[in-house]
């Protein structure tokens, strides 16, 4: 059976209906375990003090903010190439989740920045590119809402997502060029020498898993809502025409 089967809305509704409780449960468990572990059972860092505990929200949220956009990009491509409605609707469903994740990363980062750098906000490239990502999400969502016809909206937002991705990457380099920053580099990668210590590493992994699952659960839920909205619209239209 090909994977495209799941692009059939009926099939998708069945499968996602089965999956949803499990994913939700796992997400809840992972999040609760990870956050409690991180919040209660990790020591304060010798340099950053207790603020290091923010990492368990900040980093997973940042991760999902970027992955959310990537997911939208892939879904948009699938829609443009194979015209599976579910994929367009899932892109629509993902946008608000991604935007919230971006917002969480920004807010926790800002709160963290206050004690660490002595300022809520600095025009560091990482932060700036997140702000820009936030703007891209805003524009994408606004475009979805502005267009009446669902297929046209799907087409246009897909094109915007693709063009936007190119410009988002360009902006990232532009911003890097513009200002070399304060923010720590990505030290998550395994081969880095300055790997953060295991005390923080393990709960962080759990939290990241939790955020991924949370994203998937919300995505399934919202995609189901979008599919239903689409069907509702079609039914109402039919009723009117009859």
């Amino acid at each position, binding site marked *: 059976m090909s994977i495209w089967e799941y692009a*059939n*809305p*009926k099939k998708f*509704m069945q499968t996602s209906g089965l999956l949803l409780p499990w994913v939700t449960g796992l997400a809840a468990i992972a999040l609760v375990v990870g956050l409690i572990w991180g919040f209660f059972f990790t020591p304060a860092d010798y340099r950053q003090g207790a603020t290091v505990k923010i990492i368990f929200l900040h980093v997973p949220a940042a991760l999902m903010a970027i992955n959310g956009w990537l997911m939208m990009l892939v879904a948009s491509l699938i829609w443009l190439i194979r015209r599976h*409605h579910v994929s367009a609707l899932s892109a629509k469903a993902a946008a608000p989740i991604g935007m919230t994740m971006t917002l969480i990363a920004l807010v926790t980062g800002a709160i963290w920045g206050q004690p660490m750098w002595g300022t809520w906000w600095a025009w560091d490239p990482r932060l700036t590119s997140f702000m820009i990502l936030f703007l891209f999400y805003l524009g994408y969502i606004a475009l979805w809402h502005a267009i*009446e*016809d*669902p*297929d046209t909206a799907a087409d246009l937002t897909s094109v915007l997502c693709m063009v936007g991705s190119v410009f988002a990457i360009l902006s990232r380099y532009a911003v890097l060029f513009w200002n070399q920053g304060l923010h720590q580099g990505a030290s998550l990668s395994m081969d880095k020498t300055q790997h953060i210590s295991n005390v923080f590493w393990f709960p962080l992994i759990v939290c990241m898993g939790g955020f991924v699952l949370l994203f998937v659960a919300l995505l399934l839920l919202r995609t189901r809502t979008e*599919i239903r909205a*689409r*069907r509702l*619209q*079609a*039914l109402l*239209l*039919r009723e009117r*025409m*009859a």
Partner: protein
Amino acid sequence: MELRVTDLACARGGMIVLQDVCLQLRAGQALLLRGPNGAGKTTLLRTIGDLQKPITGTIDAPEDSIAYAAHQDGLKATLTVRENLQFWARIYRRHMGDVLQRMNLQVLADRPAQSLSAGQKRRLGLARLLVTGRPIWLLDEPTVSLDAASVALFGDVLRGHLADGGMALIATHIDLGIKADVLDISPFRAQHSVPQAGFEEAFL
């Protein structure tokens, strides 16, 4: 040269409006589309004019042979009548010739389009068809706002076009005074059977 539409289904606002439309136009023939308000005449013309995609079915026509005249005339308010026509003539790489005379626009030729009355604008919009040089005309209520004299004038122009081997597909509620077959599109209204359990139907 002919226009042949087979088994066409077309949609508007996400709903199939017409189904199984078949029609055929031969050189020199005109066809009047009839149907009550909301029957789907505009939708059908836009689909044949390649402004929207058909849901199913085929439209066979020689390439670059269709000229479409919509409810709106596409006039530029600040350009004069002559400049407006000349622009379209150049776009279609043709000469204007005596088109202004034929649509009785010579006295208005140097007035900006914004200072025309409703019927005068319409005459200019119809004159555009003549400079496209295309054989198949799709006309959506062409005589709206025209007075009797102008309707007759347009009738002459249309007969001339047909005599030259042109074709015309015309949606209208009023009598144009030309000899033409009539196609009532009400029978093609799409049957919206209540969808079954499946979800696929929800997605058109």
